[in-house]
């Protein structure tokens, strides 16, 4: 009962599902325009579009996108990720998680950050990143 008291039944936090426009709105590479509002980056490659949940897999800070160095750098403990959010330096144990994405009837991208696709440490490439819902094929 004492433990239950500390777990609130309802919380007011930002919504986990939201729309971010059409795939055509985004250029190749990393787009940081939703970082402040939704804590995500939209990442577009030649064949797919995916949404990276902007939380360092080390201890949960929000890394910065360093366009000049073409990498994500976490200010807390120095983890580094490449432009597809795959870790290559620092203490991060695995690449950053990718949020569930799908297109609605209108063709807009719907993101759900409550469902995350992970590439756990030790799991052969590319983890859950090839699962349907982890990306939108272009």
């Amino acid at each position, binding site marked *: 009962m004492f*433990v239950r008291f*500390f*777990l*609130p039944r309802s*919380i007011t*936090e930002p919504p986990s599902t939201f729309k971010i426009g059409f795939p055509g709105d985004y250029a190749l590479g990393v787009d940081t325009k939703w970082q402040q509002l939704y804590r995500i980056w939209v990442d577009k490659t030649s064949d797919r579009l995916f949404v990276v949940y902007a939380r360092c897999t080390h*201890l*949960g*800070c929000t890394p910065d996108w360093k366009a000049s160095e073409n990498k994500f750098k976490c*200010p*807390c403990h120095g983890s580094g990720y490449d432009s597809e959010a795959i870790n290559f330096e620092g203490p991060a144990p695995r690449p950053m998680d990718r949020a569930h994405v799908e297109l609605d009837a209108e063709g807009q991208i719907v993101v759900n950050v409550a469902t995350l696709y992970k590439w756990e440490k030790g799991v052969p490439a590319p983890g859950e990143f090839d699962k349907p819902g982890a990306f939108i094929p272009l």
Partner: protein
Amino acid sequence: MDSDPKKKETKELTGEKTDLGLVERAKETAATLKDRALEEAKDYKDPQQTQVWKSIFRVSHERSDPRNRSLAILSNVFLHLHPAKINRDAVRYQYTWGMGGITFYLFIVLTFTGVLLMFYYHPTKIVAFRDILYLEHDVPFGKLLRNMHRWAAHLMVITTWLHMFRVVLTGSYKKPREFNWCVGVVLLVLTLLLSFTGYLLPDDQLGFWAVTVGTNMARATPMLGSEGPFGAQLGLTPYNDVRFGLLGGSIVDDNALLRSYIWHCIGIPLVASIFMAVHFWRIRKDGGISGPSPVQLESEMKTPKKK
């Protein structure tokens, strides 16, 4: 006819057999009262004889009695914060560094300045940081107050570690002080928790990310955190694990700030005070603040009575 009933009345009132007149009786009473008043006034000249004094200090201060003289000290908490007698070497700074005492004094400074800070601080996301700026720039002596709290907090963590280091160096954790060492370890943890919960309260970037990182560690707790060992098997998610309970949400937000504030100002200081009381009491019971533990020779040991 006139005087008879009056006399009867006086006799009834005093219950004495007297033939004295009313005037004489009044004079007599006045004299007794005066004597009593003089006697009482004599006592009032000596504050130690007043009831107020005796109710506070309890023991009579009859100087001629050596037992009374020592009792007056021993039974008074203000005069008896330190033990009645100590080993001359036990208080040498080479042995104690004074670190335990300094830590406690810092705790008192922190309690005092902390209560004053509470007069101007609201633990909400909207105004918390603004209150800090207000304290720094507008509140009279606010900057001094905040910095006293901040530096005393840093110092308290440092002195706690140094105190612990000294205890290790002098071997004071050994028998019969093992239990007090454990109490001290709990106090160390409480000190660090006080420091950590206070870190979030200014609601600046430094504290926010420190608490983000700290509570993400809690996420990896075995059996309690959603990403820790057995967490997933026990059905833990970011919305019902230990981190959620600490933050009152899945992100460091308003609830986290309020919880941090309550733990920082009420919960942990209260528990720490209780442990400190036990800690200090045990120091005296376990043979003083430093130096070798009390030795009992085999020849001094009492043999158990045989029946």
